[in-house]
């Protein structure tokens, strides 16, 4: 079903990912007590264009991670739809479902749990290929080492258990793992908080290169507006489960529309005049 769409309109204006009216409620009825429902997403409309770099910001609890998880398919929304290249992901048949899952990847925030501590670095990165049954052992290892190298991880780390790597190293492994299956889109859910700033900058530069070369779509969820402003061309703001603003990054920085956004823009630290980088 996915392939047919691609053949039909490879350059159609349909966005890569389109979210419409998405609502997600948590909480369920318990025995003998009233259900307490929290609404994490409230009628969200959102889209991601191919090869774009979009930022998604908002206060904690505004629903950013929930949106990401719904897009990737880790959560099932209460109502609304998520469409990948025009097809509702819920209608994708199971065998295609795995294909879809490989096309959209997500990198999580917590470096400690993002890689199984018992796995070696190389095994962790090549896991997607192993699960999909792609290539033989040697090929998988080569692919893993390739991506590890491009993310600045030395080859000696390949057989080291993830237990013995630092948070920043593990986070880079997670990014390598997301890239190894040649996805079309990657969602970075606060993935850069664990990396120190020069390192984060290097990784972001590398990702920008990938975007150009492979038309990789990126969604960056985060807090650090200063960093996001440098990387993303578009920005969306979430508040209490809704998208309250969506603009190009330039116009946003000049004149943020929503009250919360104004707070966020105001809080970007800048060097005092007279200091140079």
């Amino acid at each position, binding site marked *: 079903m996915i392939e047919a769409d691609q053949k039909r309109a490879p350059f159609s204006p349909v966005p890569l990912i389109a979210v419409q009216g998405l609502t997600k409620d948590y909480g369920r009825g*318990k*025995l003998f007590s009233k259900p307490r429902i929290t609404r994490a997403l409230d009628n969200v409309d959102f889209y991601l264009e191919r090869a774009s770099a979009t930022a998604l910001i908002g206060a904690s609890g505004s629903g950013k991670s929930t949106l990401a998880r719904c897009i990737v398919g*880790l959560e099932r929304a209460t109502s609304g739809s998520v469409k990948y290249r025009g097809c509702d992901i819920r209608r994708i048949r199971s065998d295609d479902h795995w294909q879809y899952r490989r096309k959209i990847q997500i990198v999580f925030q917590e470096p*400690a749990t993002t890689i199984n501590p018992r796995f070696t670095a190389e095994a962790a990165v090549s*896991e997607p290929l192993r*699960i999909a049954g792609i290539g033989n052992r040697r090929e998988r290892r080569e692919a893993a080492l390739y991506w590890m190298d491009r993310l600045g991880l030395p080859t000696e780390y390949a057989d080291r258990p993830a237990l013995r790597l630092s948070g920043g190293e593990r986070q880079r492994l*997670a990014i390598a793992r997301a890239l190894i299956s040649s996805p079309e889109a990657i969602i970075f859910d606060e993935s850069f908080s664990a990396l120190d700033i020069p390192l984060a900058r290097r990784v972001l530069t590398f990702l920008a290169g990938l975007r150009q070369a492979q038309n990789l779509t990126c969604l960056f969820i985060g807090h650090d507006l200063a960093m996001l402003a440098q990387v993303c061309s578009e920005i969306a703001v979430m508040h209490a489960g809704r998208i309250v603003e969506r603009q190009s990054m330039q116009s946003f920085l000049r004149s943020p529309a929503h009250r919360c956004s104004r707070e966020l823009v105001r809080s970007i630290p800048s060097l005092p005049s007279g200091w140079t980088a």
Partner: protein
Amino acid sequence: MIRVKTAIACGVLATVHGLALLANFAAPYSFAAQKREFAFAPPTAVHWIDRHAHFHWRPFVYGSNGEDESRVYPIRFCTRGYSYRFAGLFPLNRHVFGVDAPGVLFLLGTDGFGRDQFSRLLAGSRISLTAGWLAAILSLALGAVLGGISGYHGGLLDDLIMRMSEISLALPWLYLLLAGRAFLPLDAPSSTAYLVLISVVGILGWARPARLVRGLTLSLRERGYVLAARTFGASGGYLLRTHILPDALSVLVTQMALLVPQYIMAEVTLSFLGLGIDEPVPSWGNMLAGVQHYHVLVSSWWMLLPGVPPAVVALCCFTIADSLASRAGAIPL
């Protein structure tokens, strides 16, 4: 990697279980054999030096349980004694050690019927250890299944199972057990009653392992690497095999190490109270029951010895559980 204490604990446990398996071979007397003339006899003194100050390589005992110094009975090894079936298959009558009749060798003294406590201790270890393992396995298996279902599916099923576990934990287990034992006819064949009882004990103890497994499942289900594997299309089976079970396994083994001694104690208590295995089959519990009589308490201190093996087994199990728990804790989070 393995600390000395843990290694010793494992060694002792292996020895105890080995002795239990080879109980008939290691015991000089049958557990039911009575020598009424030696009722409540103290442990036989073993000597290497006789009254003429001669040293003998082979240890010996004096006649009449040490009182008659005129008769000397050397201890023979790999000697003939009562016959039994080895592994229930072929008959054998060799034993590790023994003395020729009419000499007697009561390493741990005798009870009111003149039965050798050492032999009974060995025979009883079979009963008590089996009880511990059987009940622990039942408890853990049932708890793991219910806890896993509860944690994985959530929802109403989870709520129901958790409520039931709260109820189960809220009741005093001993009272419930005794009440449950009452529902078995008092004159049922001892082995049946015993097996049923142990199974009930094990099944009643499902709540704590269930809560543990549920917590484990809940936390493991949400780990970053499990979610990541789901995003690249991993099946439930793969997740369980590769990510969830290895972590859960170490916790479950630790639980096992804690449950086995607990259930051994339960069996000992029940048999002591007269609700477990019946005479003449010995268990560490019903051997202790004799101590309740005043005259026994006053004059026959060796009757308290059956309390030592459960303590030793428990100590070893707890040591192993501690070391397992601290090793599992080495994995961050």
